[in-house]
Structure formats: structure tokens, C-alpha cells
């Protein structure tokens, strides 16, 4: 039975491909265009703002109607891949820059360089554009980003007498280790590292210490090499867990949100989390719970850290690329970017939006986050082909074992570098 279905499906596919040709394309009849905008906004505030902006656009542009389509972060890659293959992709696509590489190299996304208005291009810093640039083409407009910050229990912090870091004078990694030791007490850990997904945290924070891990040669090929800077972040975390016992071992297998009950209960003095987690803190913290946002520790390269901003792209199959980019330009006007950023509790990439006074208040740590924006860089592995396999098969288990104390630094290096280069080589023949 299934064989029949499969055979029929395969035959029909071939037929469909022939019949559909370029396919796609909607609207356009009687001069009216309809664009589908798939948004991944999920928090109520954020969904409301996105829908409101679509409404405002539609009111001002009766000839170019935008249809809001709700997507979800959980399944966006598979869903988009299928839609691209089937010629039914939305015209405007919301995603994250680290998910774009496959689609960009696969020819599914439009290169936006000839379409982007100068104002939008100039309004977003080069660092941010780099996150969505692949093989010289720009395949998405980066518009929201979040640094990793330390969310700290104010009462514990003040009682301990440690120096409170600021973006101007952050803790060094060595100082951070000392501080977490000082904050550790009866039944309490100085820090809880939620490292269920350890690779991106390690690589992104590693930039501050001069870590790079991925090195592109003159021939364009990427290899993994572990320098001195690459060892600072993993070494600090490893020592906090296994030597100082100032970081909770149980948190290593947790996701970010899982650490919050322990944080609220005073079990952890600090948790390194994405900037947007502040919303969950605001919603779930018990009444009277005092918390603050601190910059992540700095190293040789200051507060630098890697990010994968949220992006807006246009499908290569869209027959209305110009109109789609016009809508993106509208959506990302500085004032609108601020609205989107506040809805998602993130930072806008746009220079003018970032200067908005409402993003520089001390309230809920906005000012600390905004002060970090200039230090954000493209995540180290952003355009490395083979990275997903290296991450899943090599780096994730190796880092998990290293952090839990099951292997030492030499073994970690061997796995990340020797095994890792074997994986990458397969993608770069």
C-alpha cells in the first residue's frame, strides 16, 4: 500500500514539477499585490505589535496587501525547507541568522543587496550585516539581537560586598571566578550555567577572551584550532563546577528557563541568560524579588560576544521582491524597530533605534543591554559549512563531558580539533 503511495507520489512529483514550472506568485491581479509575511513572534506583546504594524502598512498601501502568517521557532527550519521545495514559501520570512546559511547557499533566499534602500543599509552597523552575509550576498536584514548577560540576585550581591560590574568596568573572567566563589555559601551557588546547549554559549562568550576556534585559510577553507583565548571560557566554567564548586553541577543539563526557580529561591546568586529572559523574570519572580542585569565578564577583547540576530528575508521565488523589501523597510523604520525590540525584550540592531531613550533606562536592565550592543559580533560559526554536524556530533558531547568533569582539557582539545576537522573536511572537499 505504502509502496503504491510512494510510487504515485514520486511520479506525481515529477509531473507536478513539470506542470508547476516556476509556480508561486500570488496576487498581482487588477494591480493589487498580496505578500505573505511569516512572523515568528510568539509573546503576546510581540505578536500584537507585529500585527499592528501589518495593519498600519495595509492601511497606507491599499495596492500592496500584507497577510500576517504565524510561524513557530520550534519548527521553522523544516517548515521553510518544505515550503521552498514546494514553491509555496512566504514572501517575507522571519528567522534567525544562524538558520539562514543552508537556505542562502541553497538558492532559496533572494540576495537583498540590489534591493535594500540606502537608509536601511546605512542604519544597521556592519557587524550586524555580517551575520546575514554569505558568500558575499546579503540574505536577511538583521533587526533584533540579544547579548548574554548575568541576571543577578541584588540582595545576595550587595550582602556579599563584591564589586558590582558595569559595562564600562566589567568583571574579568578571573575576577568572575573569584566572585562566584565569594557568592557561594550554605546551599547556594554563585552561578548556575544552563548548558543544555553548550556550544553556542561557549563559542559566543569565547569571543571576549579572544577565542575564535574557527579559522578560515587563504583558500577559503575553515579549520578548527584551539588557541589560548579559546580555553578561557570553557576553563572557567569547568573550574567553577569541578574545582571551586561555585557553579551548580545540576544546572549543566538545564535550559535557560529551568534555572529560574532556583534563582528565585536563592539557590543561585546569578544566572547567565539571554537578554530577553528578563521578561520571564518579570513575570515569574515572587513579589519583592530584587534582581539586576550585569554585563557578561570581559577578556582580552573586552565585552565582545557572538550573536545570531533575528532576520527578515525575502524568498527567491517571490514575484514581488521589491515590494517585499519595501515592507521590510517600513517594518524596520527606527520607531518601529524600537516597538519590535520592546515587544521581544531584545535590542534593535539599527543605530537610530538603539539610541531611543526608552532603551537606556536603568529599569529592567535596558541600559546595561544597550551598552553592550556595540560589542556584539557575528557568531563565530555563522557561515561555517558542516558546523551543525560538528556541533551535534563532536562539540556538544565533548563540552558536556568536559564541563561535568568526565574528560580533561587535553581530551576536549583533541575532540574539538582533531575529530572536528575530520567533520569539516568532508564539507570542504
Amino acid at each position: 500500500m505504502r509502496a503504491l503511495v510512494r510510487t504515485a507520489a514520486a511520479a506525481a512529483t515529477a509531473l507536478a514539477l513539470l506542470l508547476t514550472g516556476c509556480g508561486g506568485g500570488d496576487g498581482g491581479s487588477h494591480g493589487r499585490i498580496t505578500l505573505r509575511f511569516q512572523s515568528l513572534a510568539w509573546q503576546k506583546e510581540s505578536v500584537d505589535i507585529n500585527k499592528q504594524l501589518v495593519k498600519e502598512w495595509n492601511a497606507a498601501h491599499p495596492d500592496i496587501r500584507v497577510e500576517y502568517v504565524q510561524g513557530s521557532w520550534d519548527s521553522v527550519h523544516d517548515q521553510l525547507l518544505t515550503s521552498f521545495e514546494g514553491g509555496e514559501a512566504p514572501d517575507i520570512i522571519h528567522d534567525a541568522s544562524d538558520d539562514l546559511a543552508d537556505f542562502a547557499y541553497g538558492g532559496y533566499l533572494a540576495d537583498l543587496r540590489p534591493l535594500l534602500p540606502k537608509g536601511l543599509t546605512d542604519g544597521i552597523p556592519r557587524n550586524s550585516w555580517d551575520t546575514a552575509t554569505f558568500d558575499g550576498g546579503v540574505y536577511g536584514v538583521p533587526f533584533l539581537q540579544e547579548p548574554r548577560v548575568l541576571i543577578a540576585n541584588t540582595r545576595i550581591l550587595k550582602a556579599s560586598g563584591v564589586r558590582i560590574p558595569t559595562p564600562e568596568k566589567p568583571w574579568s573572567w578571573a575576577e568572575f571566578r573569584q566572585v562566584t566563589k565569594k557568592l557561594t555559601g550554605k546551599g547556594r551557588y554563585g552561578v548556575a550555567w544552563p548548558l543544555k546547549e553548550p556550544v553556542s554559549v561557549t563559542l559566543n562568550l569565547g569571543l571576549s577572551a579572544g577565542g575564535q576556534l574557527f579559522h578560515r585559510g587563504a583558500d577559503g577553507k575553515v579549520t578548527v584550532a584551539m588557541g589560548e583565548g579559546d580555553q578561557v571560557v570553557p576553563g572557567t566554567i569547568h573550574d567553577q563546577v569541578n574545582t571551586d564548586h561555585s557553579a551548580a553541577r545540576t544546572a549543566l543539563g538545564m535550559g535557560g528557563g529551568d534555572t529560574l526557580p532556583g534563582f528565585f529561591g536563592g539557590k543561585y546568586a546569578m544566572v547567565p541568560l539571554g537578554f530577553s529572559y528578563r521578561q520571564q523574570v518579570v513575570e515569574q519572580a515572587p513579589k519583592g524579588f530584587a534582581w539586576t542585569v550585569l554585563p557578561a565578564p570581559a577578556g582580552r577583547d573586552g565585552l565582545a560576544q557572538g550573536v545570531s540576530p533575528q532576520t527578515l528575508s525575502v524568498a527567491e521565488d517571490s514575484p514581488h521582491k521589491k515590494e517585499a523589501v519595501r515592507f521590510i523597510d517600513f517594518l524596520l523604520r527606527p520607531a518601529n524597530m524600537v516597538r519590535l525590540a520592546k515587544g521581544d525584550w531584545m535590542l534593535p540592531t539599527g543605530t537610530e533605534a538603539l539610541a531611543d531613550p526608552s532603551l537606556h533606562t536603568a529599569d529592567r536592565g535596558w541600559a546595561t543591554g544597550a551598552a553592550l550592543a556595540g560589542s556584539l559580533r557575528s557568531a563565530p560559526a555563522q557561515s561555517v559549512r558542516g558546523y551543525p554536524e560538528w556541533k551535534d556530533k563532536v562539540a556538544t558531547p565533548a563540552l558536556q563531558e568536559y564541563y561535568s568533569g568526565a574528560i580533561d582539557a587535553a581530551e576536549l582539545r583533541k575532540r574539538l580539533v582533531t575529530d572536528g576537522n575530520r567533520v569539516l573536511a568532508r564539507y570542504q572537499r
Partner: protein
Amino acid sequence: MSMRTRRSVRAGQYVALLCYLVFLAFPFLWLISTAFKPAPELGSLHPTWIPQHPTLDNFRQAFDEQPLLRAAANSLIAALSAGLIAVLIATPMAYVMARHRTRLATAATGWVVVSQAFPFVLLIIPLFLVLKNLHLINTLWGLIMVYVVWALPFALWMLVGYVRAVPAELEEAAAVDGAGRLRTLVSVTAPLLAPGIVATALFAFITAWNEFFFALVLLKTPEKQTLPVVLTHFLGAEGASDLGPLAAAAFLATLPSLVLFAVIQRRITGGMLAGAVKN
């Protein structure tokens, strides 16, 4: 074995059964508990089974944020239709495969089993193109077609077992008594097969009710989306979630399956037993 030992063994069996039931029920009970907890209790270091300040806010928020009723109606239409159509197609096929044991029928049955091993992600792109050509993308009918095709092999496999459990001698006896083919099927075979048909329909219903990926890919507009797809809208990037409303919505999503099970539980049990005994 003495009476005392027998009692001890029996008591042990009950304890083991109780543990197993608690193990099975734990996620569902926790889901209910979470659905009624206010946000601060969700983030408590010492979670309690019974919410200290039970609230309906999560339900209110879930309904406020997402079109749950419309999504539930879509799911219900898709799942009921899939269940019904799957048994309508599978029953006569299963009868033929069970009663006429040819090499072809044996090979077909074997292939049905093997086909279950293929991941459906392999099918989705060709299926997408076929449905697109038939103008069935973003329609519940397109989704129902997929669900029927997806449920059919296993439904067939289940029903073949049930048909084989109905003694062929009963049909022969009816024929000897003068009943025609149709009369025999309607009056003798069908009533005996009913529990199996109900169980199979329920299987197809639940498979379709819970299915996520096909619905995600094939349904484009919010008006058409089914409940599992809408539930993912409570999830953010990197595992972040709106836990309270998600639990409330997920709790509501489990209710139809539970109600259906409760209503036809006896029939299913009978059906399963009937399928389990070989002639």
C-alpha cells in the same frame, strides 16, 4: 502455593500496578496542576501538586492569545473524517486480505509493516507537490487525505487481525442456513467485527488529532491551523515558553481523546481481546 503466599503475590501485583498507573498518570496530573498555577508558582523552587492560589488566568490568556476553539474545531473535523474514511476503506480491504490468503495478500501485509519504518519527512515534499497541483494546499480536505493515507497501513494491519479472529465457520454456517453473501457480512461478520472497527477508528482519530508536522507544512493560514500547530505558538526560541497558557491549552487539547476513550473504552477492550485470540 499457600493461601498466604498467594495473597502476598496478589498484593505485590496490585502495588506494581498502582506504581505503573502513577507513572503513566504523572505527566497528565502535572499538566493539570501547571495549568491552574499562577506565574509566580510556576517559577517556584518548591513546586506543589495542588496550586496554592489556583487561577483560571492561564486559560483566559491562552484563549486570548490564540484561536484555540477554531483550531480545536479544525482538528476535530480532520481527525473524525480521517478516522471514518480510514475504516471505510480499510475494512473491506482487510476482509479480503484476511479471508483470501494468497501470496499477494501476504506480501501486501508484509509491505504494510515495512512501510511503517519510513520517516514521513521523506514523503512530505512529493506529497506537498501533489497536493499543490490538486489545489489542496491549505485545505482541511488535503490534510484529511494525507491523514487517511498515513493511517491506512496500520488500520489495515489491525483490522486484518480482527477479521481473522472472527471464525470463518460462522460465515459458512450462515451460508448453509441460506444467508447470502451480503446478509452474512451484515448480520454475522459486522457485529463481531464492530469492536475492532471502533478501536481502529479511534487509533486513526488519535493519530490525526495529535499530528503536527503535516498540518504545519500543509496549512498556511491561521484560520485553517489545527490544535497541535497552534500549541507551538506558545513556544519561543531556544526552548523558551509561555508555560502557564501552554499547559492550559495542552490540557484542553487532551480532553477530546480522553472523553472518546472513556465513552468507548469497553468496546476497545473487547476489540483488542478479539484481535488477540487467533482462530
